[in-house]
């Protein structure tokens, strides 16, 4: 799908605040409320807007530690990949799982209450999984998200 200038401006506004009323979005863009609604609908139907997400303060909710884990599998083959993906995705503390090409086979984003809690997840849930080889952990200190090429 190709975007025009209004679509780009609309997506930027939605990235900042997806909960604002369509009428207010329209005012900022110089569009009527129905025209704004139709644009949002079109972006959703095309899959450009994949969904809405709540921005939560993880630390205030007691999740003080986020770790990026690189996982190398010791044994490969389609079955072990699928088994690993299924098992690791089922862990609540594992927020995202990506199959990657490079130094590691998988990149996991893990959230935990503190370092002791992270160690528990790593040792009891992840390291015990069949096929897990080398693991590299990097503790996140800061994160910022950017608007991207809009």
């Amino acid at each position: 799908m190709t975007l025009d200038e209004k679509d780009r401006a609309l997506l930027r506004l939605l990235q900042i605040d997806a909960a604002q009323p369509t009428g207010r979005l329209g005012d900022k863009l110089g569009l009527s409320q129905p025209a704004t609604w139709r644009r949002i609908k079109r972006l959703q139907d095309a899959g450009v807007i994949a969904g809405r997400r709540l921005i939560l303060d993880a630390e205030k909710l007691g999740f003080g530690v986020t770790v990026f884990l690189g996982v190398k599998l010791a044994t490969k083959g389609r079955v072990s990949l699928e088994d690993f993906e299924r098992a690791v995705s089922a862990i609540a503390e594992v927020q995202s799982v990506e199959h990657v090409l490079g130094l590691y086979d998988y990149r996991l984003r893990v959230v935990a209450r503190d370092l002791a809690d992270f160690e528990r997840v790593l040792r009891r849930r992840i390291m015990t999984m069949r096929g897990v080889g080398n693991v590299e952990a990097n503790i996140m200190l800061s994160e910022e998200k950017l608007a991207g090429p809009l």
Partner: protein
Amino acid sequence: MLDDESRAILRQYQSNPALTVPELAHLVRMTPARVTRRLDRLIEDGIIQGQTVEIDWTALGYTVHVALRFTLDKTVPRAFDEFIVAARQVREVLEIQTFLGQVDVRLLLIARDLADYQRVYRDDILTLPHIADIEALMTLSRVKGDVALPL
């Protein structure tokens, strides 16, 4: 910390932020007025900071997703700050994280195709200041990616 009622509301709301107050109230078996009071409190306390949209960049033609992991030259006192300020200017960068560990900074970069990636990498990434080393991990597929908190 959260009590059970707020936790129940947040759990539902996190899994579907498009829910209205009456819908949320129905799911957690509370009155809409009570849910509204709880939500107002969560916003006031800064626990709910807002809502954003997830953009599927693949649907916009950005099919290449690469995580670039940098180690920086730490002999330069302001290496981190200067690197991050410059990295923010690269349009194709979606995320910037800093770490304690082997990696100093990670950038999530998108590109339309490999030729486009090569252009961004050479013109905009290799020219960033204070790079000691770069590793690239290309995303083949996203198995799980909702980035929800285990409430």
